[in-house]
């Protein structure tokens, strides 16, 4: 029971962070057809900028300023990079963002060094909020939960209830029609790209001190975010949400299971001292998202909630 509750809580927080990252990626993909390989690099950029701003001023300023800055960088990248490559097709765009991820990684190493920086939870949130089964639960995690939930509601409201959201939704499926109606489609694209990057930056701000802020964080997070987007179904925010929660819960609960494969498949004769039997569920946790990805693409290529095939 105890492990289950903690796994559920931590899994939900991890899942919400994943959703914050993948919602921007899904929006960008469904609108422009670009699977932004550098998306996790913007997440890393958000964490590092927040670290620098926190050192100079305070965490609360960083919480607003860092995502805005990352969004600005994203807009510049779209305007002067992606738009140029767009004419050469989707493979060239994917390659461009792949190279961009390389560049951002190296630039981060120049500015902030090769080792992890000391980006810490702000003192005002650094206390145990409540005690559960004798273990203290940090308040910052609940803070992450709230920020993510707030962002979720705000995004939903923006897309479904405002005029701007209506135009964005229309531009997702019929960009030419929207253009003919007099809307500036390239500007919409640039804004959505910037907003998506800003969301990734926000995830970096609140995730950077929850995990570790080091130059490897983009490489670790990037592939998992792809998995979320593809498993959820491209272009579907609901699907991305379900997939993010699923993967968050799957990974955190797998880490807390101490059983080995022999314990589970012992009945078909898998011995505990064989190499396959010795593998524990916990050590398989990093593989699970990719296993899920391959399975989904084989069985249901459109993803959980997607309305079209990838």
């Amino acid at each position, binding site marked *: 029971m105890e492990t289950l509750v903690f796994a559920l809580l931590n899994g939900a927080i991890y899942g919400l962070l994943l959703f914050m990252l993948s919602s921007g990626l899904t929006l960008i993909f469904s609108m422009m057809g670009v699977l932004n390989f550098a998306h996790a690099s913007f997440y890393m950029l958000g964490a590092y900028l927040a670290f620098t701003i926190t050192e100079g001023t305070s965490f609360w300023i960083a919480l607003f300023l860092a995502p805005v800055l990352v969004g600005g960088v994203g807009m510049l990248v779209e305007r002067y990079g992606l738009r140029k490559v767009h004419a050469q097709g989707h493979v*060239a765009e994917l*390659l461009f963002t792949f190279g961009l991820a390389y*560049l951002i990684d190296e630039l981060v190493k120049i500015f902030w060094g090769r080792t992890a920086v000391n980006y810490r939870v702000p003192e005002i949130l650094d206390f145990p909020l409540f005690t559960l089964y004798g273990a203290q639960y940090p308040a910052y995690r609940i803070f992450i939960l709230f920020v993510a939930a707030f962002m979720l509601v705000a995004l939903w409201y923006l897309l479904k209830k405002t005029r701007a959201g209506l135009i964005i939704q229309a531009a997702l499926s019929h960009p030419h029609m929207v253009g003919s109606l007099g809307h500036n489609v390239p500007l919409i694209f640039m804004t959505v790209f910037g907003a998506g990057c800003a969301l990734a930056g926000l995830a970096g701000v609140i995730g950077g001190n929850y995990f570790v802020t080091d130059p490897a964080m983009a490489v670790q997070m990037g*592939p998992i975010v792809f998995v979320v987007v593809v498993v959820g179904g491209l272009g579907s925010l609901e699907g991305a949400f379900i997939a993010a929660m699923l993967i968050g819960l799957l990974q955190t609960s797998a880490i807390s299971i101490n059983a080995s494969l022999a314990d589970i498949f012992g009945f078909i004769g898998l011995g505990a001292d064989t*190499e396959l039997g010795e593998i524990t569920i916990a050590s398989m946790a990093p593989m699970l998202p*990719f296993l899920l990805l*391959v399975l989904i*693409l084989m069985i249901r*290529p459109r993803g959980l909630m997607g309305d079209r*095939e990838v």
Partner: protein
Amino acid sequence: MTDMTASHAALEPSRSDKFRQRTVPLILFAVVLLVIPLFNPSRSMVTLLNHMGITIVFALSYNMLLGRAGLLSFGHAVYMGLGGYFAVHVMNWIAEGTGIWGSVPMFSMPAFGFGAGALAGAVIGWPSCRRAGTPFAMISLGVAELVAAAGFMFDSLFGGEMGISGDRMNGPELFGLSLGPVDEVYWFIAFWTFIGVLGTYAFTRTPLGKLSEATRDNPERVEFVGYSPQRVRYLVFIFAGAFAGMAGGMSAVQDEIFTPENLSLIPSGAILIATYVGGIRYFTGPIMGAIVMTYMGSNLSDYTAGWLLYLGLMFVCVVMFLPDGIAGIVYGTADTIRQGRAGEMWRTWMLRLMGLALVGAAIITIVEVAFRWSDGYGEVFEPFGLQLTVENPLTWVIGILSLVLGILALRRAAKGGGK
């Protein structure tokens, strides 16, 4: 050329054309491979050449997917790695010498890698080749992560973090090569590089090779003609895996070790960059890319800590401005000279070169100064005796002024200016 009434027979290249365009380059390549040892290259140079040979075969196999079939893979190193791992295991079986393994020559390792790579391609390609484009790229990424993770898990097959090492000086000798010293390994690598180039080139001439290009350009029409694009992709994928495995077998003999790192996304990304920078629209592009990238990888990393940054910059620039890569420049220039337009071209070229030199100097200055500043050891970047520090205004004059001037020159050249 534009004569619409020309019959099919007239469109076909003549016998001498075929010989000149298809056979002569291969002969030249073989001659180059034979002549290189006459220059008495140093041991480290031979090792570098061997690595170039391996990368050439690997890049050519990757281009069977990316350039010919239009399939962007983020996990091609999986097939080279699996082929190489199998070859290392075979090397160890040869060392034990039990049964039939005692009579297998070490020279044949790439053939074993070829088989293992084909098998891996056949197994993994089945689920991944159903769709092209982004889904294919995503599956290849997922598979690469899975295989790399499995590599760290199954110690008896992959040797854990230490990897598995072999010894190339076992088994019967072939062609009188003991494969002990590197210059004997050179002949081994040269032989198999030639086989690899010949094989991948021959593949482009087969009906399957032609169909793969058709599938890249228009899968719907291929289906109308009566072929299954899925099946074409699958078969091409198996061959690409096989040639990657062959490169793995070459690497197993040259380096005598394989680790799970060889299966990961890092070498997959590196071969993607090498192939694309070389030029995916030409058969020889990946060869040029492999040579340049291997050279840069082994030499540039000694000079500067920022070589990955230069690599990334170069890659992004090639994607944005030079989608035909190095081969595009080489063939484009050769065409202009052949058409006798060299005179009008060379002024644009001078402008372009000047711009590139200025931008290059600016970027190198900024990056090198930045790296030394971020290391914090107080080292100073001193090109030509200049003391360039962060405080020195000269640094920023060189950095920013030449960057602006260089970009202006390049823009002018792009508009066909300079005449």
